[in-house]
């Protein structure tokens, strides 16, 4: 399994940005975050004690349509729960997240964004981290397809997803909660339960909690847990940014 690769702070003028390469779909997602910003002309719509989150998804080739509105809604609900919009400086202001999909196959009419959803979520998370937006937790997401024989396929390609019996996107918080589930196709609950276990293993690894509460991330068939990959990306960036300080010390 090729791990996704990501770079932080690729854009100079945005408060935070991230570029994310998704190996399964071949698309590259560029995300930018501006926060906190004033949202002019919408004084009546702003919540008095919370930040207003806006998400824009721009597909690579076609102009944004109805499907993008839908996926924006999904991202907005999830991020709304993760971003601490009540922190100082955020209420009555906006957190604007823009995600551009570069390359890869375009998503057809009426097709759900399921196979791209984890990549979009990860990009949004990395861009938010890069913009230093206060978050209550981080998360990691994955997409799984179940084919007719009941085999679970990790990060299916567009064709695999089209022929699969069901496609599932799951996102887990850093504390192990199921944050998001989007399942489509026909399946029964036992299948979903298996999918959930596998997804949890992909995101967190098979967790071995040692006596002192440290969580060791074991590697297994699924390779490195996604959460570790994301964490490392951020750590690398921090090292690079504080290189002068670390070297001086």
């Amino acid at each position, binding site marked *: 399994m090729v791990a996704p690769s990501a770079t932080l702070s690729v854009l100079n003028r945005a408060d935070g940005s991230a570029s994310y390469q998704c190996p399964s779909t071949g698309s590259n997602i560029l995300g930018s975050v501006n926060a906190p910003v004033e949202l002019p002309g919408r*004084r*009546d719509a702003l919540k008095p004690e919370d930040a207003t989150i806006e998400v824009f998804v721009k597909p690579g080739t076609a*102009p*944004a*349509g*109805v499907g993008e*509105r839908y996926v924006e809604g999904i991202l907005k609900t999830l991020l709304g729960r993760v971003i601490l919009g009540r922190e100082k400086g955020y209420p009555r202001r906006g957190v604007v997240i823009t995600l551009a999909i570069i390359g890869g196959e375009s998503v057809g*009419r*009426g097709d759900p964004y399921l196979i791209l959803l984890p990549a979009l979520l990860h990009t949004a998370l990395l861009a938010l981290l890069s913009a230093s937006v206060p978050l209550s937790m981080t998360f990691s997401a994955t997409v799984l397809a179940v084919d007719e024989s009941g085999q679970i396929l990790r990060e299916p390609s567009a064709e695999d997803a089209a022929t699969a019996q069901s496609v599932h996107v799951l996102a887990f918080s850093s504390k192990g909660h199921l944050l998001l589930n989007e399942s489509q196709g026909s399946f029964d609950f036992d299948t979903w339960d298996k999918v959930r276990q596998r997804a949890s293993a992909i995101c967190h690894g098979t967790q071995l909690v040692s006596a002192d509460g440290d969580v060791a991330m074991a590697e297994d068939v699924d390779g490195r847990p996604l959460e570790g990959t994301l964490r490392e990306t951020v750590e690398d960036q921090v090292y690079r940014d504080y290189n002068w300080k670390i070297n001086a010390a």
Partner: protein
Amino acid sequence: MTDRRRINGPPSGTRPAVFASSLKSASGDATERPRRHRQPNELRKIFLKTGLIPSASGSAYLEYEPSASLAAARSSPQSLIPPSSALKLACTVHGPKPLPRSATFSPNLVLTTHVKYAPFAARQRKGHIRDASERDLGVHLETALRGVIVAERWPKSGLEITITILEAEDDRWWGDAPDSHDAPWGMMNVLAGCITAASAAIADARIDCLDLVAGGVAAIVSDDAVAEEGSSSTPKLMLDTDPAEHKSILSACVVAYMPARDEITEIWLKGDHSKASLGVDDSSLGHEALIDGAINAARGAHTVLVEAVLESAERYAGLSSSDS
């Protein structure tokens, strides 16, 4: 042009179904034009109910009784082509509410009316964006209502009236070619229905009015049997005409009428009956007669309106007593 905010159909567009019977209509009519079974001064029954939409300050739903031909077609369906249709519309009133910040100061209640056909309301599929006729209806409705509402009571406020037409009246019988005497006659019936329903919804929203305004339609039609012979037709005045039931409507009139004050707030007269009235005694079928006919139709609608408003008031009284 594709609409990015909606789901679009095939890019090349689609065609409405063509029925075999309409292709060979030249050889002879297979189906007959629906006939009017009512007396000339008999109105269709109106179903009017208020308060069906609780999230609005006031609401009303209006439905006309299906004509005899349509009722027959419903009970024992033979043809997929409906002989005529019956008006169905829902009206909501939101407000009075503060005007948006960007709006200029107004000492009166600002009335906005909005009439939209559902895409499936008419024989031809309607677009999602309001067309000229829908805007026209909105303007007519606004004039009809503006004279009724006591607007000085709510300065700096807005009142939004939205009407969704689920089923509209036909402009002509479907078998007729769109030719002479052609005008959107169905729109006039729709407007009368809009006025009556909006009046009920405004009363349901407890907005102060001078009177309950009601809409009515009358038309001068030439009897088709005579007209086909080519001799001078004997035009008749009919109340609450269903355009599908008449071969040619010479002129029609819709009024918004306040019975208690005997005032008209809106009048819309269309068509030319000057030639028709020549045949009979002078002014017996002049404009006056047409307007009087429309007023009589409005009086009929008013009785239904009073009942609906009474019901709304009873519900409100019941609510407020249980509240406290």
